[in-house]
């Protein structure tokens, strides 16, 4: 009896609350552990503060296409969308995302530094509000690599020292850069070389040396699964996935931080929202990207906050109680040799190199 009554009472209450507030907001993100961290760090405090109900939609991996379709249909149902920086740039180019003025529309740092300085270089597009720095990097099975664990990105290409399969992403981005780095191209010259057809051939030729030992992944969860099953010796994926594999699931896997590629993930507000919804979305963004909120997210997932002012506030994991700083891609010990995703380059060359890459894969 009691539970039923409670249920009825609470649904009546919920209905009443819905009738009073009636404010829903759809926020699109990646799902899984990442959405959970946003739920805890942003959504729950925001709902507590404003009473606005947040609906999660896990469609970020197809956000660009869906937003374009919604825009053409003239009915944008999303209020705030979490995308990687490259997608944000494309959405901005296509006129599908709203331009943001960081200094007036985003919170300044606690010491008064304006947001444009606090985010700094990470504001890679006019429409993009950065949230985290993540990296694409390698993890390896500690029990399958012998006594000398890999510590260099080129160990991925060394089949003699580290026999076995590797997991690489089924797209040219990152793989082409790593291949050139390990084929003797200096870090500063990588994109100059990759611009030329010869450079592209060179990178593919290097990848060709390990092609038969590669398992190609397309979803971020693939590599953790392949590593856990012992199907591959090492594999690239997002550092947060490896963190959860190593620390939360206690698998015999370790990180190879060398030549990790930094990338950004953050928010955009779709273009074409009504004034009222736009105001609400901006209010949410102002709240969710302030210094404290960004630092809070790092309690739940090992991605680095995008504000300079958030870094000192990063604390311990909310459930495991371990120090999060050493697991951040931006930690000095991990970031001795890093690479920043070149957005302009890939915006131009993505289609061309992808066609070549896919043709090479199909050979």
């Amino acid at each position, binding site marked *: 009896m009691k539970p039923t009554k409670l249920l009825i009472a609470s649904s009546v209450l919920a209905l009443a609350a819905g009738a009073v507030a009636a404010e829903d907001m759809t926020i699109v993100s990646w799902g899984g552990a990442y959405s959970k961290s946003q739920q805890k760090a942003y959504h729950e405090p925001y709902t507590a503060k404003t009473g606005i109900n947040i609906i999660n939609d896990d469609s970020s991996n197809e956000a660009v*296409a869906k937003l374009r379709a919604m825009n053409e249909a003239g009915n944008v149902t999303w209020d705030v969308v979490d995308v990687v920086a490259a997608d944000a740039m494309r959405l901005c180019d296509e*006129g599908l995302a709203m331009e943001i003025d960081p200094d007036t529309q985003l919170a300044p740092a606690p010491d008064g530094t304006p947001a444009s300085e606090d985010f700094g270089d990470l504001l890679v597009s006019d429409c993009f509000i950065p949230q985290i720095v993540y990296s694409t990097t390698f993890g390896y099975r500690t029990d399958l690599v012998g006594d000398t664990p890999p510590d260099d990105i080129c160990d991925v290409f060394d089949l003699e020292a580290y026999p076995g399969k590797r997991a690489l992403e089924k797209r040219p981005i990152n793989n082409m850069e790593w291949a050139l780095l390990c084929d003797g191209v200096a870090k500063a010259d990588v994109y100059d070389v990759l611009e030329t057809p010869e450079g592209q051939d060179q990178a593919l030729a290097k990848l060709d040396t390990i092609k038969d030992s590669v398992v190609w992944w397309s979803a971020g969860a693939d590599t953790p699964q392949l590593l856990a099953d012992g199907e591959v010796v090492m594999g690239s994926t997002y550092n947060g996935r490896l963190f959860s594999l190593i620390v939360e699931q206690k698998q015999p896997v370790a990180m190879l931080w060398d030549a990790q590629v930094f990338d950004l993930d953050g928010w955009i507000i779709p273009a074409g929202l009504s004034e009222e919804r736009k105001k609400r979305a901006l209010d949410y963004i102002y709240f969710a990207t302030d210094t404290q909120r960004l630092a809070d997210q790092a309690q739940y997932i090992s991605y680095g906050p995008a504000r300079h002012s958030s870094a000192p506030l990063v604390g311990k994991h909310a459930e495991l109680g371990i120090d999060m700083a050493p697991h951040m891609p931006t930690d000095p010990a991990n970031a001795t040799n890093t690479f920043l995703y070149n957005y302009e380059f890939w915006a*131009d060359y993505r289609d061309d190199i992808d066609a*070549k890459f896919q043709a090479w894969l*199909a050979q």
Partner: protein
Amino acid sequence: MGRQRPIRNSSDGDIMSELKGTGQQTADAPTPEDAFHEAAALNAREETSKSSGRHGDPVLAADGTPLKRSLSRALRRQKLRALALIAPLLIFVLFSFIIPIGSMLFRSVENSFVEQTLPLTVAELKNWDAESGELPDEALYRAFVTDMVAAVEAKEHTKLGTRLNYEQTGLSSLFRQTGRKVKRLDPETDGPFKEKLIDIDEDWGDVQTWRTIKTHSVKITNGYFLNAVDMRRTPEGAVAQPENKRILIKLFMRTLFMSLVITTSCILLGYPVAWILANLPSRSANMLMILVLLPFWTSLLVRTSAWKVMLQQQGVINDVLVWLGIVPDDARLVLINNQLGTIIAMTHILLPFMILPMYSVMQTIQPTYLRAAKSMGATNWTAFWRVYFPQSVPGIGAGSILVFILSIGYYITPEIVGGTKGVFISNRIAYHISSSLNWGLAAALGTILLAVVLILYWAYDKIVGIDNVKLG
């Protein structure tokens, strides 16, 4: 589905010859003979009314109107009622299926965006000879700056850059960066612009940039279709893509080939199962039927991922083989992330679509035919091959069409288990829809795929005959 050729109101001979032409008729199918008798009877009635009826005097209905008119009115009302009954479905299909698909397919040739964004430039480009190898003159640069200032205002220039970047790498950033600087110029007073634009980016001094814009400024383009068959549109006409970018034709071929292999393996695996189901007593047949249907109630992704656990090198099948000593531990079989993986997983997923139509056709085959054949001295094999099998062919036909057409458009299973050699053309279509946003190319690929399916269906009809397809 019975045979529905139009019955002509002509001499019996014609109809009979047509009847003979249709090949074997299964026992239970509604035969054309029924229709033929009806038609003949009608003919005869008309004939008698013509010869013996009162010419010129129309037969009247009870209310005095000519019978013919009141009959046709009643029929019209009936037709309208029928139409009203199917109207909801018709409207639904029209709005949710035909119009969206039609507009999506239209994108494969639609290209008015370039001219809309750069109207003055496109008009000027008509006077410029792309073959001359010389840069266009100041008038064009002025027109371009005017267009660009308006486009930046409307935030259309980056979109245009994305569109043209499909054709020439580098134009995306060229338009983005030029847009930032060009908005400071005033098209009325700041001329001449040729020097200034080339100063902003040297690519504006490259003939190739202007050639690309000119080539792709037509309203209706064949460019996407050319791209879809590994060619590209140039001022000189269609040219093959460089060797290292050709992939789409290969993928079309692979899609067709693998769909055929999957259909064949479904037939081979499904036929015995359908036969057992059809010949068991209904109680045990129903139990087995649940096993066939069970996969239907499980999510596609779960089934595909389960195959991953089964087939991978550290997976169940390899572990068992190693444990049995059939396969050495250091040479485990590669069963997934290749064509084999795709074929195994998709055969499993599509098998019910083969078994169900086969089963329902086999259920209608009278066991007495087999007994009769045997009583007249046929061996088991002859009885099966000459008597049973021909009657089950319509089920194979229906199953094959279902499986083949479903597999030709499959996307998620090849993506998960196909590795690099087991992916289909649909995976490329998905890439262009969701990642590269080149919807024109995706639409062209989709149109070609649709055309291929229709041609194959037509060929099937010509060779086997679509009336030989039965779902039960």
